[in-house]
């Protein structure tokens, strides 16, 4: 049995292995724990502010008191406009890439464009929004201009997640449909899309969470620091939750200390809950999958 006895070399390798494993564990924790502590701080210092009244009333007294209702409503408007534009476009793009696109230069350029669209700084998206939607299409600073800017910015999120869920549908499903004489579009509409619709929904939730948090792209395209009324249509300016956090924490003097924490906590809760729902949904789907 001597060949199974650990030699000095084996023991040294084992020791080193444990040491390295511990080191990487510590590195992982050092990445995660500070953020959790910070989030805990936000929750601890902000929770006293949040109440139904806070969520449902207007800011008063130069934004040093009152609630965040118009900012919440404005964020809903912006998300709505962004979704209406980017979801159909993103899903179409994903269908093209997953079901039609041949391996050629065009497809490679599309993929590269998607990566770049996701990588362009948010402030450059803002400049684009000003140049294209506010000035060239003459929408002015409005919900429409800001929503469209957000739509362009979050388009890659929809495309990438939709493409993934389309590609998860087994090729055999398509082949079965084609062999019955269905056209390519009939196959997509009746076989591929129904089998991936929940995956697409996951991506849309993820996009909503991104849209809610973006600040720079809406600063100059349609969001305002303070408005005493709610927007009535897409032509109006609006307040937004993310910009409101920036405003009350940097632009307004004499804000009571807890108020911005309340705004930050509301924003981060919204984003994290949306993400958690999306992740939970994805896991549930993975467990339920029939193939």
């Amino acid at each position, binding site marked *: 049995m001597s060949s199974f006895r650990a030699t000095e070399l084996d023991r040294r*390798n*084992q020791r080193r*292995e444990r040491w*390295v*494993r511990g*080191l*990487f*564990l510590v*590195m*992982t924790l050092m*990445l*995660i724990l500070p*953020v959790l502590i*910070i989030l805990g701080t*936000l929750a601890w210092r902000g929770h006293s502010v949040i109440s139904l009244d806070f969520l449902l009333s207007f800011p008063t007294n130069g934004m040093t008191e009152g609630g965040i209702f118009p900012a919440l409503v404005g964020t809903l408007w912006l998300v709505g406009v962004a979704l209406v534009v980017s979801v*159909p476009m993103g899903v*179409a*793009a994903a*269908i*093209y*890439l997953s*079901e*039609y*696109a041949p391996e050629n230069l065009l497809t490679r350029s*599309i993929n*590269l*464009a*998607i*990566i*770049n*669209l996701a*990588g*362009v*700084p*948010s402030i*450059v998206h803002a*400049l*684009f929004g*000003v140049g294209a939607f506010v*000035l*060239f299409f003459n929408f002015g600073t409005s919900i429409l201009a800001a929503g469209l800017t957000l739509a362009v910015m979050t388009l890659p999120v929809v*495309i990438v997640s939709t493409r993934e869920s389309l590609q998860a549908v087994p090729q055999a499903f398509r082949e079965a449909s*084609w062999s019955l004489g269905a*056209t*390519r*579009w009939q196959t997509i509409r009746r076989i591929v899309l129904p089998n991936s619709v929940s995956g697409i929904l996951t991506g849309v939730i993820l996009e909503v*969470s*991104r849209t*809610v948090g973006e*600040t*720079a792209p809406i600063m*100059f395209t349609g969001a305002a620091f303070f408005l005493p009324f709610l927007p009535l249509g897409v032509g109006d300016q609006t307040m937004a939750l993310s*910009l409101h*956090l920036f405003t009350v*924490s940097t632009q307004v003097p004499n804000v009571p200390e807890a108020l*911005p924490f309340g705004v*930050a906590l509301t*924003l*981060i809760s919204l984003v994290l809950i949306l*993400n958690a729902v999306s992740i939970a949904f994805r896991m549930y789907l993975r467990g339920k999958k029939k193939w």
Partner: protein
Amino acid sequence: MSEFNRGRRTVPGADTLGSSWWWDRIAQGVVFLGGISAIVFIVAIFIFVAQQGLGFAIFELDKGVFLTSPEWRPTTEPEPVFGGLALIVGTASVTGLAMLVAVPFSLGAAIFIGEFATGRAREYLKVLVELLAAIPSVVWGFIGLTVVNPLIIDLFNVPVGLTILNAGVILGLMAAPIMTTIAEDALKAVPDSYREAAEALGATRWQVIRQVVLPSAKNGLVAAILLGVGRGFGETMAVLMASGHSVNLPTSPFDSVRALTATIAAELGETARGSEHYKALFSIGILLFLVTFTINLLADVAVRGRRKRR
């Protein structure tokens, strides 16, 4: 896609060109338009930003001054000075420090999650990292302003906490989850058969990682780092709020700086459309676009190189 369904060609006699055929054509056209929308938008972004700034950047802006002068005085009359050196150094120093924080930790975390962690622990860690990546940048900026700022003042006994250090740490924490996710994907792309072959030769887990997994995932890891750099470089709100936002050539991490992105965010609202200042801000936008475009291109080349070798 399989060969027989190329779509364009029709079999004589078998195809009736009925309504379903037309729907198929229309649908193909529509999704094609969706498909090229990404290209249309990326080109449109360049055109619309360039339309406002390129003329100024080429003919009016003194590039020598922009690259060498730290004086950013866009509103001084009659002779505004557009020196971008302080802004460039500001962006570079904050991004550099962020990468010092983020690169080792995110690669370490990726190795732990991808290679050491198993089962439930791995799933939980992945979800946690994904959630951390979702925190909006304005919230990070707020954290820099209200949590990290007093911490730096207390810890190092300095008068101001809104510095390179603050913005760098914030940006590092912000970029790390994304880099971790991409790096872990790169490790996952290494075939298990490589690991099994090395383990069959008696290698320990760490030996496998160091001598087999990391070398084969090298390009993917480089791509992860590049995308992290791109993200740090282009980050706006967090840097605007945490860096102190003062035009300044820094001499230590405890100095306040101003970044290129933050300058646009802070000043665009107060400039008159078509003024020199306004065009100068768009010129900075062109610079940002070109640099991030290059970084993304390099990352793509790195990943493609990895695929080609297999």
